[in-house]
């Protein structure tokens, strides 16, 4: 795709996002907000998975930390939502520093297992630390406060939608810029051949830790949006199932494309939404669809579409 066409496509998408609230019914809009939040989450995973080749099996932990961080702050202090977003993202990022430092000691499958283990640890902490987190009940009644002190309320569905859409668009642009920066280019080289990278003069680990933390910041932001939107945070949002689903979203949409995982998240959740209206055992079908995707569409939706367009010129 030429840069010009990409830009046009981007502008069209933003325009569509802008119009949608007036087109969609209320419950549809609320599904859309969900899709955007998880799109942001899946995109953050693509930073480490697609661009650096580090497959984290515990990414939900940072989504969950963001959700708890923002939920606790909103419940106890009722600051404007953006303050809670910042706090959630920073909490996730801060925890990612030691976890990233540890996990990047290993590579490949070991890295995946370590991130899973740490995520399960954080999940257990959220589950057991009742006084702070409410244990398995979680924290309910998280308020949608205001945009800024004395500013407009975000309890209005449209208003919250704008906030989420803006967060996604800004994050997507920031991540895109990141992947094109000298740092992002270095990440790709690490993904391609870490041994060669090291022999060219830099230790790979600092890069990996930094990108791990950045991915956690964005995952935390997604979680921090989730808590006030749904009004709760519970251990479920840190569970391994969500980590696995995030991987599915990335693979479904197209690894290493940033926008692919956003689309992947939407498709994935919509399939789930549709299936779950027919059967409560939708997991069997999403599992099967995913298995088929892995076997037949390794590039995901966006990757396959790109290859198809390239083949046609």
């Amino acid at each position, binding site marked *: 795709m030429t840069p010009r066409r990409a830009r046009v496509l981007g502008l069209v998408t933003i325009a569509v996002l802008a119009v949608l609230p007036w087109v969609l019914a209320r419950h549809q809009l609320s599904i859309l907000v969900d899709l955007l939040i998880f799109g942001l989450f899946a995109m953050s995973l693509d930073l480490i998975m697609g661009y650096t080749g580090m497959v984290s099996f515990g990414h939900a932990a940072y989504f969950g930390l963001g959700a708890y961080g923002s939920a606790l702050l909103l419940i106890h202090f009722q600051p404007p939502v953006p303050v809670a977003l910042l706090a959630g993202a920073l909490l996730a990022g801060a925890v990612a520093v030691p976890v990233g430092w540890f996990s990047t000691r290993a590579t490949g499958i070991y890295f995946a297992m370590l991130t899973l*283990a740490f995520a399960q640890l954080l999940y257990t902490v959220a589950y057991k630390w009742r006084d702070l987190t409410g244990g398995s009940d979680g924290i309910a009644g998280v308020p949608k406060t205001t945009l800024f002190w004395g500013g407009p309320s975000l309890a209005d569905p449209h208003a919250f939608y704008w906030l989420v859409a803006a967060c996604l668009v800004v994050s997507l642009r920031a991540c895109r810029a990141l992947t094109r920066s000298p740092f992002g280019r270095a990440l790709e080289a690490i993904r391609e051949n870490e041994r060669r990278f090291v022999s060219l003069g830099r230790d790979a680990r600092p890069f990996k830790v930094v990108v791990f933390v950045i991915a956690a910041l964005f995952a935390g932001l997604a979680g921090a949006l989730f808590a006030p939107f749904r009004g709760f945070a519970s251990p479920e949002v840190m569970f391994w199932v969500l980590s696995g689903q995030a991987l599915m979203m990335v693979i479904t949409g197209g690894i290493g494309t940033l926008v692919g995982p956003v689309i992947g998240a939407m498709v994935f959740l919509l399939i789930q939404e549709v299936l779950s209206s027919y059967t409560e055992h939708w997991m*069997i079908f999403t599992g099967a669809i995913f298995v088929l995707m892995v076997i037949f569409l390794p590039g995901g939706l966006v990757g396959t579409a790109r290859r198809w367009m390239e083949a046609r010129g």
Partner: protein
Amino acid sequence: MSFLVEQLLNALALAGLLFLVSAGLSLVFGILRVVNFAHGVFYMLGAYLGFTAMAVSGQFWLSLLVVPPVVGVIGGLLERSTLRFIYRRPPIYQLLLTFGLALILEETVRVLYGPTAKPVDAPALLQGAVPILDTLYPRYRLFLVVAVGVGVRLFLARTRAGLVIRAVAQNSEMADCLGANVPRVRTLVFGAACALAGLGGVASAPMTTAYLGMGIGVIVDAFVVVVIGGLGSIGGSMAGSLIVGAAQTWGAFYLPETAMVIMYAVMGAILIFRPWGLFGEEE
């Protein structure tokens, strides 16, 4: 004193079950270079099929004999119908594929058995408790410790299969040759590992009941085991199982709220010095 013995036995029983699961995980990785996320689900499958076998026959020993091969066949069939097509891809795709399989199997079990846990009775011979020093210890647990300990020892020392496993685990190049050339070996190894996990499942059911979520519980523990011990090393699995078994048992007693934390702390401490595990080789 008797308390120490009791804790030690508990740790050994847990370690034995963990070993059955993690050894298979490690074996599959050593030969197929696949990390099987669905491995824990086969453990769960073993427990549920054990429940069914007990319900049908009422014979614990029979189910202990019949269920593992059944689980193994299911595993082998799944390998042939899915994994086989993507061995050439980067390893993460295989992990993801088995994750999909895990979802399907977990949900299928929920459909077939419902959401409630299924209790399984220990055989009459092993019900009740035996006095050890001045305390009573459950017979079934004692049986697990002895049976798994002796079984593993005999299996590895005496049988040809054990020999091959040890050789393969020690020499990953040979594993590559085996794996690359013989699709059948892959299916057999995958099936055998699933059967081993199934055996662990049947054996654990009288202690823990058969319940949904036991698969993911055990796979996460087994990941910790192989991370500590080193993937692809049977000795590592053994050492890792003992360490995790001990950490969980003592952790659960002294710091009941944070038993998991102890396990991860131990793992972290070991990884600082050996990022590829106690017996693992650098990738």
